[in-house]
């Protein structure tokens, strides 16, 4: 098992390198760079600057970047083993000082959403499959599809407006004012969890629908598997039969969705975070991309990809734990 995990990690390394290259090229694609944008702004404020080249050279020297994308890339990537992800031009800080908090919150939202969608899908999927083509089943699938159909950002916007209408305060942010700048503690975590439901609902809707469908479909399949008949023929009560066999089997495909669900959730939380002003990676990434803050944007992209790779890894490990065939064969 340990060997398997190690090997999976090793396989991820070339993937990560390619991801880092792709991320870097992507953020470098737009014409111009941060220096250009900065100079433009300086020129608007003070139109009398005539030696633009000198200004550019000076800023480049300060930021430690060169015209060559390759040089910049190697400067950036060589710092990774040391935990140095380069320098954020916009924030005038090392990238490593900036990202962890946001990634942590992104992870929190993603994780809670994942748990939420899995639990919802698990329960409703079982009931739907046990009572297919009933009112409950239809309602579940209708709301599931609806969740799939309503764009996340719209839902976020509406919920934000409605929360003002209903509770007199708009939903935004993840914390109550008293915890905003407080250091992390159990109370703050609890506070965050009590605020997290809107983003979780918004991000979770789309994923839940497809997961319910997966759970329901596999449950329906599994319900007709011969081993369920075997279990029934033993005289076990229905709930024992269902929980021990079809449910246990249907959990595996559900767990395997974690792998591809994660990137979706991270995406979803990005766009929702932008609408809801959540202090997660989404808005910062957008800002960094638009401001061509290349090391920051690149590191964010990279870290999100790493997050999803870790997710896939975890999902594989969970699968192996759930299914002895993977574990032992």
């Amino acid at each position: 098992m340990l060997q398997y995990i190690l090997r999976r990690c090793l396989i991820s390394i070339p993937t990560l390198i390619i991801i880092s290259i792709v991320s870097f090229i992507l953020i470098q694609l737009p014409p111009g760079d941060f220096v250009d944008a900065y100079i433009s702004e300086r020129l608007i404020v003070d139109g009398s600057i005539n030696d633009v080249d000198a200004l550019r050279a000076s800023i480049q020297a300060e930021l430690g970047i060169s015209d060559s994308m390759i040089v910049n890339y190697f400067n950036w990537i060589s710092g990774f083993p040391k935990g140095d992800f380069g320098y954020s031009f916009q924030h005038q800080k090392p990238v490593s000082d900036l990202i962890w908090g946001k990634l942590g919150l992104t992870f929190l939202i993603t994780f809670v959403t994942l748990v939420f969608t899995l639990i919802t899908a698990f329960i409703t999927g079982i009931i739907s499959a046990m009572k297919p083509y009933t009112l409950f089943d239809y309602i579940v699938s209708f709301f599931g599809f609806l969740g799939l159909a309503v764009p996340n950002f719209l839902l976020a916007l509406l919920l934000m407006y409605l929360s003002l209408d209903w509770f007199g305060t708009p939903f935004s942010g993840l914390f109550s004012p008293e915890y905003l700048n407080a250091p992390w503690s159990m109370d703050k975590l609890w506070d965050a969890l009590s605020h997290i439901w809107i983003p979780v609902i918004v991000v979770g809707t789309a994923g839940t629908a497809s997961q319910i469908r997966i759970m329901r479909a596999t449950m329906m399949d599994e319900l007709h598997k011969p081993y369920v008949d075997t279990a029934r023929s033993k005289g076990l009560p229905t709930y024992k039969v269902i929980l021990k066999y079809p449910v246990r089997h249907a959990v595996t495909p559900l767990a395997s969705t974690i792998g591809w669900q994660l990137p979706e959730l991270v995406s979803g939380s990005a766009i929702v975070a932008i609408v809801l002003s959540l202090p997660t990676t989404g808005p910062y990434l957008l800002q960094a991309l638009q401001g061509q803050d290349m090391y920051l944007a690149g590191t964010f992209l990279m870290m999100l990809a790493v997050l999803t790779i870790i997710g896939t890894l975890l999902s594989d490990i969970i699968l192996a734990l759930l299914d002895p065939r993977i574990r032992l064969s």
Partner: protein
Amino acid sequence: MKRKLIAMGLLMGSLNTWAYQEAPSLTTLVNKGELPSVDKRLPDNPMVITPLNEVGKYGGIWRRIEPNYQFHEWSNEPLVTLDDKQEYVPNLAESFELSADKRTYRFTLRKGMKWSDGEPFDTEDVDFWYNNLELNSDLEPSVKSLFSSGGEPAKLKIIDKQTFELTYKEANPNFIEMHLRSTMEFRLPQSPKHYLKDYLPGFVSDSELEKKVSDAGMTDWRQLFHNRWNTRANTNPDLPVLYTWVYNTDPQELQQQAIRNPYYWKVDTAGNQLPYINGMSWPLTAEPQVRILKALAGEVDMDRISKLTSDFTALKKGEKQGKYKTRMMELDDHANMLVLFPNQDYDGEDKEVQRLMRSKTFRQALSIGIDRDTLNQILGIGLSTPAQSVILPSSPGGSVETSSAYTKTDLAKANEMLDALGLTERDNEKYRLGKDGKNLTFLVHFQAGRKISEEGAILLKADMDKLGLRFIMRSDEKSYFEQIRRGGDYQMVLHNNTSGLNPLFGANNYFPVMSANNFAPKQSAYYLSSGQSGVKLTPEMATLAKYYEELLNEADKKVFAKKVNEVMKLHAENLWAIGLLRYTASPAVVSNRMKNVPKKLYSVYKSPFYHNKEQYYISE
């Protein structure tokens, strides 16, 4: 009765026998011995502010919503400021004098003034700021226009601890107003020598500095220095300043805040050390929609909420629930929110486009072909004014005639003028063909995401369709839009005019002398680089440039106004820039608990700030 006494006391203030009062929170600190007494903190001659309505009460936090990066802008303390009547009022400097040749400014600082950490502020700081920072080519490769004239930087002369002189090569009567309006450029109030010298080569050893840089996870000493100096954003809560409130949060915190400067150097007429309000807080980021929602929920005490006039209605409707009043905040300096700039320097393939754009008749025809009333109704909900791209009529040299020239829609006349230019033939889509018989297309760039431009572009295109002119409206990402403007090869841009009060502030709007000029970018480059690059000035542009030089050195206000008027007349007749609409005000909210707030609110940007924000107070 009591107020009278206070007023009498004020007269004796200069005698230094006054006993000042301070905020209760500071008294606690004083009693604990952590802070010197208020008398020792204030300068010998603190600036006395007359509260707008009444003497206020200490306490409270001013909840704001403006984005973080503007902290420096709305906190800045100029040397001298202007009051409502545009008269000079001392500020950092107790007094100033301009020499007869208009070249030398002599400022006298207040004696005994201190930075927010208690260290004294005097000409040593000024010297450091000017010679070691502003003129440091490592930090600023070219000298800011604020500090240069005739191509040379002004010279700083320190007279004594409180007095210094700034001498320009040529007459430069506008420094005061310029430094008022270029708040981002005037950084003396955040340049304490005793703090910043630790991060500057020459003051510390290279090895020591190198260690500091690498400890901070950076690679270049300038990264660290700019970080310490809060150059591009609030990155350093430790930087001593001369501001009313001192930024004191970690820059990554979600809720940002600033607390009172215990050494703030202003008092009210009752001898209370200002400010009344304990501090400010604002979110690190706030999406436009969140700003409105927060305002509606009464979670903003006072701030501009939106740039869109149309958001007024929603805010107005929520006044009762949110316990605030909706006000219009004026952007007094902004002349025109929409200006169409035909590029006089366009030298691309389409010579017909070039010919037409250089034709005064064509530009006039365009101008009277635009339905500004409709624009006003839609973009400014009828509150704006159709106007050419000239300074406000109320400003020195401004006039209604210049402002309203060629703004009345006359389609028949416009068509007549276009026909006269030879644009008589039309294609099968009813668009005019060029005189050469070829398709005629004008490409107009505008900045993506700028709502006014996006909506204006649609409306403008419809107007041009009516004239039979094929306009292609191209929305460009901000940075690329700037690049296009700098390149100078575009046909037209749709943008704004940022100078409504004085043509010298934002001279690019009127004179081909600076970068970011939209109607003659290449000639501007030529002027700016003294002929090194760009295109030689045409006679009419040369005339404008000459006016610019004269105005720079003109100290006589009347002559100044007369010359400005002549320039504006040239613009109104030639329409190098075709103005569409004046700026309208932005909706802002003022909480019912905010007191001493003036009736008329100005935007922070390039204007004399919130009026005496230190005398606002909060009363539940």
